[in-house]
């Protein structure tokens, strides 16, 4: 039960193109694994497959003990995915966005406030509509929504992109804390230096395969 992600020769296909081509990876609880690799290698696809979003057409995949070939739904409440898109409601304010997700998992309002503070989007910014934010402020808000959900497995697709140095430090600290509390983290990133400092292990994704 300490193996959180276990893919064996997993294949994911888009319109006949195998974006994940017999990829195998095993991640233990508490690890922070960095996925590196060129553009179009399949990092995003791997993360989305682990979140139960994409059907595995061949091979085996189990996440948090759930076999994804049989059931892709039940694992989702326990997984948190930060994608290339932020997944925010543009007409709502930062606070309302984070509160929505907090409500969904029964997190308290105090927790919301402290998360907003950590990411530096409290005060005036918290009452600003998301569509009026800068790119980095939006990304911070997406991270805050993710953090209040307190998932067991964090799947972060380029979490550093668009953030300034202080926000990068903050998210790194939060990831370390979460891991210390028992969460597992997969990061896809092109900021290799920073991500390597954070990760406990790094693997390469190349042409749809995982290479150690």
């Amino acid at each position: 039960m300490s193996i959180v992600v276990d893919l064996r020769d997993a294949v994911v296909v888009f319109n006949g193109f195998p974006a994940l081509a017999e990829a195998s990876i095993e991640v233990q609880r508490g690890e922070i694994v960095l996925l590196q690799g060129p553009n179009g290698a399949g990092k995003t696809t791997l993360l989305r497959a682990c979140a139960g979003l994409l059907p595995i057409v061949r091979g085996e995949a189990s996440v948090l003990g759930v076999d994804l070939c049989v059931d892709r739904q039940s694992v989702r409440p326990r997984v948190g995915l930060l994608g290339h898109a932020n997944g925010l409601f543009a007409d709502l304010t930062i606070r309302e966005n984070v509160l929505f997700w907090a409500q969904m998992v029964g997190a308290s309002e105090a927790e919301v406030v402290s998360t907003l503070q950590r990411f530096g989007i409290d005060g005036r910014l918290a009452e600003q509509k998301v569509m009026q934010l800068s790119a980095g402020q939006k990304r911070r808000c997406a991270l805050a929504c993710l953090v209040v959900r307190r998932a067991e497995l964090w799947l972060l697709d380029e979490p550093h992109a668009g953030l300034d140095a202080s926000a990068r430090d903050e998210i790194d600290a939060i990831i370390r804390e979460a891991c210390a509390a028992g969460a597992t983290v997969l990061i896809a990133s092109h900021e290799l230096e920073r991500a390597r400092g954070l990760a406990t292990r790094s693997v390469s994704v190349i042409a749809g395969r995982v290479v150690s």
Partner: protein
Amino acid sequence: MEAQTFTARVATPTTRLVGAMALVSMAWVVIGGLFVTPRDVDQGDAVRIMYVHVPTAWVAYLAFIVTAVASACWLLSRKHSMGFDRVAGASAEVGVVFMAMTLLSGSLWGRITWGSYWAWDPRLTTTAFLLVTYIGYLAVRGLGGSLEQRARRSAVIALLAVLEIPLVHFSVLMWRSLHQKASVLSGDGDIKMDGSMLTTLLVGVIGFTLTFTWLVLHRQRVLAMQDAMQMTQLDAALRERANESENKSVIESSRLK
């Protein structure tokens, strides 16, 4: 995914038998419909359209019900066997063709008896809606995504769409209508029709049902082969990507010093 064993042969003795029986009964309908049965007192020779119009309508209903049943089987079966999904798809395709034939023959008939191709009549309109609904169903099947997702999505639509059939059937009773009230399937057991006409109509229904069965059997096998072919193409694509991976690894490792 189920095991992929298939042969390139789509015809089997059973389908050949079904095909032969379909041919025979269709020939019977042609002869009976055109030469044996009498002309109608009011409608004259136009009544002969009935031997196409009515069976295609009923067999289209049957096709849509088969689609719904196969969809339900897919949803309920533990294994989610893709066979059910393919039967559902094949049956809906044939059903759409038959329903279109009903509309076509009906509007030709209408031109002769009512003097116009189309009238704003509940039966006619609901029939048109039913056809459009199943065209929509086929569009949903074509949305893309994985085979499993295609099956799941279209199964839901099929189960909802089949509810329209009673609407079409009972529409003549619910609204004032130009169209024939049910004269065969009226439920009171009192059939108002000449004996040879009734026989020919029944043979027509059997013939069209056999044709439907034959078409669905074949179509479903072709679909199975398409799905299987996707799998073989996947093998080739995987091999290609593996080569790419080897080249890339070399470049990548040389660059990552």
